[in-house]
């Protein structure tokens, strides 16, 4: 049986959510990003704005110049995450295996679902209709026998696209791209390849893996060799495991009360633990990031031999790291918490002599996480927060 992989990419996700929540924005050039006076950049823009040449990561002042009638809105990350969770919940209900790779992108392994959904294209159509019907957002689906091909295919006919690369058609499909436009090839690499006369996948195919590896380096050579033959170089298998997981919050007003900061840290620690549960990893390093009113930004971290098991454990370590460096003055405008030195959660097999103080808490967090995945709106193990609030009073 050929693998059937979907790559699903939400169209102009942030700006589409803005248009969804505020119908008067529909059909207009919506630009989401930071404020001009704060040297913000575009984080997303609608297709209407793209027609003016606006693109993401462009400084806001430049976007304003290109598209003066644009509707500029500040990002609402929480809302986007909320919508993302709803979309991912539909994917999880629909597909046997889902691998989210960012807030608005996921791989769905649809192998062996023919009897349930019919052909891959029929399945993709049903999924697109469901997401549009239930959430109101459009997306593009790429179908292929590997993640790499599916990823290229979803980008092939954006927006509202649906493109299937049939089994065996991978090389023909790749040949419609230039080397520069292949995913994973940046400007500098493309320039190096151009100097070697390698601009078309066909030219790359004329060279053996060994000679490619010799001329352009082992990893790039091997990558290019595979990609130009429509073979997945396994890049998303690698991406699946993050190097670190972190969450940060920029406060709407600066905070100088260490207690309030500690409460925010706890909430961030929960987000971190939920994401780590999603990815099935544990971290042995905890780090905090904080930014003062004057924009000076600092980080601190600590590592230990055994992984941090629960949000509360991460929180108490993060609070400790911050406490020894910041005492309320000057106020903070941002805090972040994260874990790194990640390892698969299953590897944690060291027995405990004493009852593990964090074992029970982790069990609660795992249960909340399962409920969330089923669509519950529970945000965190709230009993912990209540306790903190009480102590505060």
């Amino acid at each position, binding site marked *: 049986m050929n693998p059937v992989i979907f790559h699903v990419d939400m169209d102009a996700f942030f700006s589409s959510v803005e248009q969804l929540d505020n119908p008067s924005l529909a059909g207009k050039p919506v630009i989401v990003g930071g404020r001009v006076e704060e040297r913000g950049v575009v984080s997303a823009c609608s297709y209407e704005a793209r027609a003016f040449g606006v693109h993401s990561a462009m400084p806001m002042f430049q976007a304003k110049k290109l598209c003066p009638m644009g509707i500029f809105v500040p990002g609402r990350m929480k809302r986007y995450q909320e919508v993302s969770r709803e979309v991912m919940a539909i994917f999880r209900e629909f597909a046997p295996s889902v691998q989210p790779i960012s807030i608005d992108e996921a791989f769905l392994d649809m192998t062996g679902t023919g009897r349930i959904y019919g052909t891959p294209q029929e399945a993709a159509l049903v999924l697109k209709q469901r997401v549009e019907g239930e959430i109101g957002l459009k997306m593009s689906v790429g179908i292929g026998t590997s993640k790499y091909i599916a990823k290229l295919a979803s980008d092939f006919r954006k927006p509202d696209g649906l493109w299937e690369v049939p089994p065996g058609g991978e090389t023909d499909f790749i040949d419609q791209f230039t080397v520069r436009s292949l995913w994973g090839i940046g400007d500098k690499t493309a320039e190096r390849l151009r100097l070697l006369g390698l601009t078309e996948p066909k030219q790359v195919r004329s060279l053996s893996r060994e000679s490619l590896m010799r001329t352009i380096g082992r990893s790039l050579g091997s990558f290019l060799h595979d990609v130009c033959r429509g073979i997945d170089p396994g890049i998303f298998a690698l991406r699946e495991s993050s190097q670190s997981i972190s969450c940060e919050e920029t406060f709407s007003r600066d905070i100088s009360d260490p207690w309030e900061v500690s409460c925010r840290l706890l909430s961030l620690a929960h987000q971190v633990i939920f994401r780590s549960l999603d990815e099935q990893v544990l971290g042995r390093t905890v780090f905090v990031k904080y930014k003062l009113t004057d924009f000076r930004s600092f980080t601190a971290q600590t590592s*230990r031999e055994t992984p941090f098991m629960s949000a509360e454990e991460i929180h108490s370590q993060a609070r*400790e790291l911050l406490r020894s460096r910041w005492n309320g003055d000057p106020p903070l405008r941002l805090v972040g918490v994260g874990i790194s030195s990640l390892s698969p959660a299953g590897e944690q097999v060291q027995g405990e*002599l*004493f009852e593990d103080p964090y074992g029970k808490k982790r069990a609660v967090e795992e249960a909340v996480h399962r409920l969330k995945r089923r669509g519950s709106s529970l945000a965190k193990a709230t009993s912990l927060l209540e306790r903190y609030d009480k102590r505060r009073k």
Partner: protein
Amino acid sequence: MKFICERESIIKEISISHEIISERNTLSILSNVLLENTDNTLSIRATDLKVSFVSRIPVETVTPGSTTVLCDKLLGVLRSLPEGEISFDVQEDRMVISPVRQKKINFRLRCIDARDYPEFKSPGKESFTIAQKTFVEMIDQTIFAVSDDETRYYMNGVYMEPSEQGMTMVSTDGRRLSYISRNVERGVPVFQPIIIPTKFLNLIRKLSSKEGEISLGISDSYLFAEFDAHHLSSTLIEGQFPNYRRVIPDEHEFSCVMSTKDINEALKRVSLLIDHHSKKLFMDINADSIVFSSEESEIGNAKEEISCSYTGEPVRMYMNFSYLMSPVRVMESEQVSINFTDPAKAVTVRPVPEIDYFHVIMPMQS
């Protein structure tokens, strides 16, 4: 003030002071070492506000007095000077350091007034003495099992309590535990159990001549130690040490006895190929042999068989290799025993014949 002394006699004390003084501190005077010079004696003091150190060495007092100088630089200067007598002379706010026989070399270090230096705690009345050798051996058997997890701060030190005929020291990181209870001939007065930071114990271990006595005193959450020419004090770790007795297995069904030298050497070799992330050591115990091996990895693997005496069924166990290596490394008996009932439950490692210490290790699951 002015004094003259041999480079060799002062450099050791300054280098110990340097270890105590923490690199990151907010008060600049805490980076300094205090020097008090009277009656042909120099007393050297250093502190990080938790651990304090006082040592006395003989010098030739020219003019008595006291001052403080940056310890890090003083050590650097002393290391750079040739052997022989050195003169230390405070002129206004500078300490002039130069070798007595080579006046061409001249360092001038800035001083801070000794009056600004934090006061030292004085030991309480209650104190007792035990042999330095005994105390250092007790530290050796326990210090490695202390937890480095700051969230379990109450495990960041060695627990010490009086026992019927002496005293007991216990350490644990929650996954392994080390225990030693030693008789003290003259007895030990009853005291409230304490948790001693590792920095302090390491310092004692390093400074001790292991000859003669050490006097220990406890008061107001401080521990004082006096031995040879050294006076040390340390704050204690507050908090509740876990109920360690509950996790010490009463008895074991099986026992596997082997040569201490054999297991030490085998572990040293096999550990070379153990993944330093998982730390997983495989132990296959058979009737007359025990096989230690590492997990197969991209790099390869290692395996070593040593003879043992064991009467149970063949069994496989998994363990964090360092949990086994660190206790067997400090065992002085010719043989050791690994005792267990169930390969997934706590294992006890003891010297053979049994004496006053043992180590409990929680294995890993497959």
